[in-house]
């Protein structure tokens, strides 16, 4: 008899609110008593494929899982690889990496905010976010030549220099965005229906957040001031002034607010980056001298640099390296084991969404069926990124 009390609802993978995954939900009336995320629908074996690829060929490969946040995951891979190769990027390249990473963070957060909006029914914020995301994609395209999959960072530097007139475009975009965010606040963040839906929903307490090891804005919304950009500063972050946004409540609404404030912080960082950016080469000296002088001259004019032929045969030392990077959704960890051959022996990437997956299982029970999309959206979970 007691079994009959529960109803099992399978949400997904063909469901407007599930994404590429399935939730196995046990309902007691309208209350969730058990919640099990069932992932793997978009698993594409990035780790296995990487073992058969050259190091440089993995750059586009690691981008595929996190399409909304390609620059940051790419950066993490490059940092791990550079640690193995024992080289460093010149200062200008570090700033350019920071610039792209932050532009990417902005449009990744806008993406998350928009998806969360449509999940609780506000189509307006969804459309606005996706429309304004276009501005940042346009800027990134100006810099890298691609809209989403930038493949911009390469070992020892970046591929392209800052194009002419970029600063002016950037300041226009920031000015526009700052105005727009005020309207975002009025129609979404402060909307009474939104606050009713999100406040005190899906609370992850500080202790639980640490225990479950969740990452990124979700962790910071629970009161843990952990940001890799501050804990283990990489690229140009040590020289840049920004704040970690932390909130204590740990509910869905505070997660939204953390992301929303981080957009503003990222704009602040981007502004500083283009002000402080030093001049100089954008590829490490040891690679720079391998580029034929004729091509180098041309690259100095156009800003589009060539790769040296050695990139096909990058052979890092035998050993292992781990790197962590604060991506839009949280910490990305890359772990490379090298045996000295041109292919990695073992490549491991743990994405923020995979680390946040555990939050579903332990946060959802006790809430109502209608809270599933509200909490799901607030975690900014992206199934392809978790499945890899």
């Amino acid at each position, binding site marked *: 008899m007691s079994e009959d009390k529960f109803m099992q609802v399978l949400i997904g993978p063909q469901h407007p609110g599930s994404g590429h995954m399935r939730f196995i939900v046990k309902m007691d009336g309208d209350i969730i008593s058990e919640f099990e995320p069932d*992932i*793997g629908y978009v*698993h594409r*074996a990035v*780790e*296995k*494929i990487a073992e*058969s690829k050259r190091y440089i060929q993995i750059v586009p490969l690691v981008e595929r899982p996190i399409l909304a946040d390609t620059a940051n995951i790419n950066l993490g891979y490059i940092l791990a690889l550079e640690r193995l190769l024992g080289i460093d990027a010149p200062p200008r390249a570090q700033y350019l990496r920071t610039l792209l990473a932050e532009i990417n963070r902005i449009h990744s957060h806008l993406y998350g905010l928009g998806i969360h909006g449509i999940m609780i029914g506000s189509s307006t914020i969804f459309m606005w976010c996706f429309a304004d995301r276009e501005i940042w994609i346009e800027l990134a395209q100006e810099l890298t030549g691609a809209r989403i999959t930038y493949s911009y960072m390469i070992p020892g530097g970046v591929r392209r220099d800052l194009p002419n007139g970029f600063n002016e475009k950037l300041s226009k975009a920031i000015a526009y965005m700052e105005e727009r965010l005020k309207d975002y606040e009025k129609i979404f963040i402060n909307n009474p229906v939104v606050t009713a839906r999100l406040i005190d929903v899906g609370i992850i307490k500080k202790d639980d*957040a*640490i*225990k*479950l*090891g*969740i990452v990124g804005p979700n*962790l910071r919304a629970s009161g*843990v001031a*952990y940001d890799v950009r501050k*804990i*283990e500063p990489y690229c140009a972050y040590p020289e840049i002034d920004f704040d970690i946004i932390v909130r204590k409540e740990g509910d869905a609404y505070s997660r939204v607010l953390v992301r929303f404030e981080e957009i503003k912080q990222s704009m602040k960082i981007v502004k500083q980056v283009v002000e402080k950016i030093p001049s100089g080469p954008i590829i490490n000296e040891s690679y720079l001298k391998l580029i034929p002088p004729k091509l180098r001259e041309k690259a100095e004019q156009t800003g589009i640099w060539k790769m040296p032929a050695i990139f096909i045969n990058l052979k890092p030392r035998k050993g*292992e390296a*781990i790197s*962590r990077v604060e991506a839009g959704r949280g*910490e990305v*960890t890359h*772990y490379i*084991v090298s045996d000295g051959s041109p292919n990695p*022996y*073992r490549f*491991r990437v*743990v994405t923020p969404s*995979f*680390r946040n*997956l*555990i939050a579903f*299982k332990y946060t959802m029970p006790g809430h109502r069926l209608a809270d599933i999309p509200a909490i799901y959206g607030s975690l900014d979970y992206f199934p392809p990124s978790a*499945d*890899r």
Partner: protein
Amino acid sequence: MMSLNELKEMIEKELGALAFKVDSEAPNLIIINVEAPNLFEVAFKLNHMGFDHVKVVTGTDYPIEKKIELVYHVSSYTNIDLAKVIIALKIRLDKSNPKVKSLVKIWPSAEYLERETYDLVGIIFEDHPKLERLLLPSDWDQIPPLWKDFKIKTEGIDA
């Protein structure tokens, strides 16, 4: 502010004979090699020191030695000094019988990471709350895909 070496010494002292080798690697990595039976106790002590979450669980296949290396990358959220380092907790398991006690009881954050490692590398974690297929289809009956004997075909450069 603790330097990497100080921390390494501290860990060596804390763990004593449980860990047979502790290395440090700049800028942020401390590698602890442990025998499989001691893993749970070492993990317990590390958790006590303030390493409160698992970042990565990796299984690597070494077919020549017939071993599987299992690595837990552990760090801290609460203690800023500890947060700056990552601990790699390494054990080697026999490939024929890759069994180890699950660390979920110590670090709940390892739950899905261990489950994925079971799924893709075939390591069996005893006492794991739910050791089932995660990424692979539930009726997967071939060898674990991240073993080196699981080959994937690539095309050459010629058409």
